């Protein structure tokens, strides 16, 4: 799979040892354990596998996980574009601080985010106390799951759109204005189209992250089977009941979804690279 280096570069030392070390380490830590997971499901019969991944409780968890992840990623596209736009185009006090702060969901441990969100949106919490009289239940409802997933995916769209927005040619915008386009038309027809690949990439990254998210969700969701139980939590529940085969079967379904998304994101990034180069 890995052939030798081409001749003109072999003057630099250390190729074999660094490549061999990388491949062995990758194999031991990542590839063999992942392969073991697929091997474990191979020991199940096909009907048993199908039953494990399509029982009503599991299907309900897919609906919740995929549904809330999709909505959260969409919310992040809208507000991520807005935040990126404001950070690139406008000047306001504390902008550098705000810019750095956007990455908080990457840096804050998910369990900390989880208990903080649960405290805020609980019945007597800072925000929950105003939602409750309106009849809106946030904590222990799918809305709580959505809030946690929106938090966790927030930086992705901002960070994929921001550099593209910074590199947009001002000439195009000026040309559009000089040809009589309104500001809104300029935005919609000239500024927005070059941002599509990065918006889509940010969406896919936020969606992929949300699918697997666990720590920030479990405290606010209440974890009621059929109602607010996300798929990663169901895997843990099955493990705690010593249903290893059931847990692994669901994990394989999630892994296949994640790998498909990873492939899609790689293709997207190639596409957007071509678009910025072309």
């Amino acid at each position, binding site marked *: 799979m890995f052939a030798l280096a081409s001749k003109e570069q072999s003057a630099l030392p250390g190729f074999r040892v660094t490549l061999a070390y990388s491949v062995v380490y990758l194999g031991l830590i990542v590839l063999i354990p992942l392969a073991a997971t697929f091997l474990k499901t191979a020991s199940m019969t096909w009907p048993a596998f199908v039953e494990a991944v399509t029982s009503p409780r599991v299907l309900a968890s897919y609906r919740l996980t995929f549904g809330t992840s999709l909505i959260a990623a969409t919310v992040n596209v809208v507000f991520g574009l807005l*935040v990126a736009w404001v950070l690139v185009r406008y000047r306001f006090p504390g902008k550098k601080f705000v810019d750095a702060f956007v990455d908080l969901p990457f840096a804050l441990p998910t369990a900390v985010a989880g208990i903080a969100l649960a405290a805020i949106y609980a019945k007597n919490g800072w925000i929950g106390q105003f939602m409750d009289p309106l009849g809106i239940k946030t904590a222990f409802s799918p809305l709580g799951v959505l809030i946690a997933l929106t938090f966790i995916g927030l930086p992705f769209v901002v960070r994929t759109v921001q550099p593209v927005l910074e590199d947009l040619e001002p000439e195009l915008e000026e040309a559009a204005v000089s040809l009589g386009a309104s500001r809104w038309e300029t935005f919609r027809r000239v500024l927005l189209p070059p941002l599509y690949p990065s918006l889509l990439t940010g969406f896919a990254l936020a969606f992929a992250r949300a699918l697997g998210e666990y*720590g920030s969700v479990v405290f606010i969701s209440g974890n009621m089977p059929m109602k607010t139980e996300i798929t990663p939590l169901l895997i843990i529940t099955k493990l705690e009941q010593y249903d290893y085969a059931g847990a*692994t079967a669901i994990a394989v379904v999630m892994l296949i979804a994640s790998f498909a998304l990873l492939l899609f994101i790689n293709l997207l990034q190639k596409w957007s690279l071509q678009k910025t180069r072309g």
Partner: protein
Amino acid sequence: MAGAISRLNRPTTARRPTHDPVWVRWTLTLTALAFLGLFLFVPLAAVFTEALRRGVGPYFEAFRNPDAIAAITLTLTVAVIAVPLNLVFGVAASWAIAKFNFLGKSVLITLIDLPFAVSPVISGLIYVLLFGAQGLVGPWLQDHDISIVFAVPGIVLATIFVTFPFVARELIPLMQAQGNDEEFAALTLGASGWQTFRRVTLPNIKWGLFYGVILCNARAMGEFGAVSVVSGHIRGQTNTMPLHVEILYNEYNFVAAFAVASLLSLLALVTLALKSIVEARSHSIQTVQP
């Protein structure tokens, strides 16, 4: 995928004049700030408010608890093992990938990114399936009295897995952009391979390296899902700080839970601060060396 998006090596561009009317600028800026305030600032403020709800005394009391001290010690231990291992791997992998051409290179790059695509829960599960009592090598481990899962080695392994790509994905594009010319010059002048790496390559990649390490460290200390699956939650033994937070929270010991959480939040804030410093540095370096 689940990690940070690198903001290094991004050229800064001059700000262009905006054509938007004042009311549009104000509305958009305030909406964006309100959104960020609601989703980022309020949760962070809640952590510290809840932690200090009963005053400073109970806050510091939370850190005197032996289980809390054990959790802090374990978290530091895990990070001290996992971060250097991934650092060495990151440097080795990026040296091979950035400095040489070989078949299967893009496959290797994709495989390195794989752990970011895997749910934290599954990152823990794979080690349970391998090393657990019912796992592939579980019986052999039991015969030899070695425990990996529900013990510290399992926690370390799961942490290495979830932080696997951080250093490598930072260094690969950086070293690719820098090319091999300086290394060739050093070798021609008679430097050994190791000298070339230490005196030429390392100074060139130090900020990228540092950037990768702080992100890797933040995730290593804060990981919850993966560690939760492999730890077994034995108090004082296999509880890391995030797991300790969970236990305290589920026992309704909110002040202590948020006190430990506030320590992790401080770590996050330090990480963000260091991150912006490195980003500012690498921009200024880039403008000096075109």
